[in-house]
């Protein structure tokens, strides 16, 4: 499925750097760099993706890097290549072996 063609979704490709805030009702797929506030239902950070800022999402899937304040109300998955730094708030968490998590964690 091509993520660029989805409704209510945003896709930031590899090599793209974005600063600002995004509010997407559905999905955000980030393969590039994102700096700022992000409110989204489902966030997917690809292996090359780097997200820094205040993140609010229901579901987060991290294969790349995610920094600062993160709130994942339902499920947060950190894949083996994923790196998460900062303050974490989550409903459920899953970390694959090799995934890196640094910071304060609390359950919603």
């Amino acid at each position, binding site marked *: 499925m091509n993520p660029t063609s989805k409704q209510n979704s945003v896709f930031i490709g590899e090599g793209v750097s974005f600063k600002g805030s995004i509010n997407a009702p559905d999905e955000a797929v980030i393969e590039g760099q994102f700096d700022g506030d992000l409110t989204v239902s489902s966030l997917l950070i690809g292996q090359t993706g780097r997200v820094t800022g205040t993140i609010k999402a229901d579901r987060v899937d991290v294969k790349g890097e995610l920094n600062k304040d993160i709130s994942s109300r339902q499920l947060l998955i*950190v894949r083996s290549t994923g790196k998460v730094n900062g303050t974490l708030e989550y409903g459920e*968490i*899953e*970390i*694959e*072996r090799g*995934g890196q998590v640094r910071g304060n964690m609390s359950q919603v």
Partner: protein
Amino acid sequence: MFNKFKSAPNNANQEPEEVAEPVAPEEIVLVKEEVPAVPVAPATTPNVTPSATQQRGNGMMGMLQANVSKPSILSEGFYFKGELSAKGTIHVEGSLNGQVQVDELTIGSRGQVEGIVNCKIFHIKGRFSGTATCEELTVTSSATVDGHVVYKTLSVQKGASIKGELLLAK
């Protein structure tokens, strides 16, 4: 006190051997183990060895402990308070309060550990609160972790509850 832990797994391992002596087929197994070099035996060997390995597998409680020799077990209902230091594995199903220094620590699903833990491999299925420093941390879905954990490799199953701080050791 500590000797008591050790004696538990020892007994568990001795039991099957004691049973094995009076039973005839088991004696054949013992002979077979010395035999393989002799070419005459192969017809009966495959029939006997699987049962022997199965028994050993059950004796190990079906856990992935092939390279782990005799874990010391703090069983359910047991409450330990103080300082604990050992080489090898400790399996906690009871309650442990204090300082622990060990190679491998497993907190079973009914186990509880509170305090300072220093180990290489740390499996949490039950509850942990306090400060832990380990190389390999595994948190399963039934686990509750509250506190400060320093790790090198980490894996957390869906459903686990983690409160506090996770730090990556350099």
